[in-house]
């Protein structure tokens, strides 16, 4: 007997076709998805944890340094990774990437006229501990303009990628910051149903703040949890 994973919460997910985000109309499937009963192919998945986190991978204020410290407001981002059954997920990899404090990505395709920071790469990874808790250090990313519509700006955000315990639990998402005035104007954020949108916004917390050094934000991530009833192996 092997365990399966709860269904994707479609009502809480953005739709593939979300026309206000103008890259979606030509890149969204138009036919209904075909339901695939979970087999060994879906309940297994790549196993990545603390073993691929080395050196300063979890400190983006250090892992891109060349001749000094990156500019920007240092922040700690921490939280728990859980299944939707409430169980914390230990030793789970999180991959993160973001713009620098000026809103510029290192990526060659980013032509935004804002400075690159020679001491900031903007990517990192960390793993959850035995209680499902992760933590990394970075600088607060800047907002930046994009071409979706006239005067469009992305709110400050950090990209997250997780596998969780199986291929079925894969999640790619973005974390936003509380009080960002660009959130109600952002078609990517707004494509998420109102009932779950706020799950994408981190909470400022003094508990995670390192006195005299870096402000703390808490961002919990919930993946599909295990079904109570196992499948036939």
């Amino acid at each position, binding site marked *: 007997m092997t365990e399966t994973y709860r269904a994707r919460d479609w009502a809480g*997910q953005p739709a593939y076709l979300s026309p206000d985000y103008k890259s979606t109309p030509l890149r969204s499937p138009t036919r209904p998805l075909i339901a695939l009963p979970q087999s060994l192919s879906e309940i297994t998945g790549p196993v990545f944890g603390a073993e691929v986190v080395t050196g300063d991978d979890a400190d983006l204020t250090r892992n891109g340094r060349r001749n000094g410290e990156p500019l920007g407001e240092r922040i700690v981002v921490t939280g728990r990774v859980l299944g939707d059954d409430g169980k914390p997920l230990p030793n789970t990899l999180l991959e993160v*990437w973001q713009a620098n404090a000026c809103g510029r990505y290192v*990526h060659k395709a980013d032509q935004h006229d804002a400075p690159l920071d020679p001491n900031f790469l903007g990517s990192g990874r960390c793993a959850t501990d035995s209680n499902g808790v992760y933590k990394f250090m970075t600088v607060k990313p800047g907002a930046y303009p994009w071409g979706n519509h006239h005067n469009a700006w992305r709110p400050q955000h950090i990209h997250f990628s997780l596998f969780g315990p199986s291929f079925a639990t894969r999640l790619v998402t973005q974390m936003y910051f509380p009080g960002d005035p660009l959130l109600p104007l952002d078609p990517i954020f707004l494509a998420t149903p109102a009932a779950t949108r706020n799950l994408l916004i981190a909470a400022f917390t003094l508990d995670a703040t390192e006195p005299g050094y870096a402000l703390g934000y808490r961002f919990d991530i919930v993946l599909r949890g295990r079904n109570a009833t196992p499948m036939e192996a």
Partner: protein
Amino acid sequence: MTLRQTPSQTVGPYFAYGLSPEQYGYDFASIAGGDMAPAEVEGQRIRVEGRVFDGAGAVVPDALVEIWQADAQGRYAHPSDPRGSNASFKGFGRFGTGTDKQNRFIFDTVKPGAIDAGQAPHLNVVLTMRGMLLHAFTRIYFADEASNATDPVLHLVPEDRRHTLIAQPIGGNVYRFDIQMQGAHETVFFDV
């Protein structure tokens, strides 16, 4: 207890230095790339390559394709597969379509074995890109496998769409698998 699942958001156009940095030439180690099978891994060497097309027929240069597969004996490197797998075969590959001149994804791997008596050999795929707010699941089967005729997942798919899940051999152990986001030959995507 039930918590709401964290919503998905797009991977965006700038994932390369976070998710596939070595492939794109950034100074950060990748956890996986397109070269999935170290020399000591047993099995028939194959290359699986293809392109992603949008609804206007344009090649997508900023998609990320991920492969999850069994080893040549049909075993997954995961604790839920009690058989264990070929020791040095992880079974995971990841490739962005932004570095190849033709914007192909390219995986060098071993052909997976059948995982059980029912399913035909296949690769499991996660596809994501700018303009997709949530990733899509699909599968890659191989045209030269007789067991496709009885595969239970292929049988869930209307017959006239099954070909969208089948990679075609193009010579020299290379299989071609293009992904069409829309149109008459729109690739079948699954609700896993």
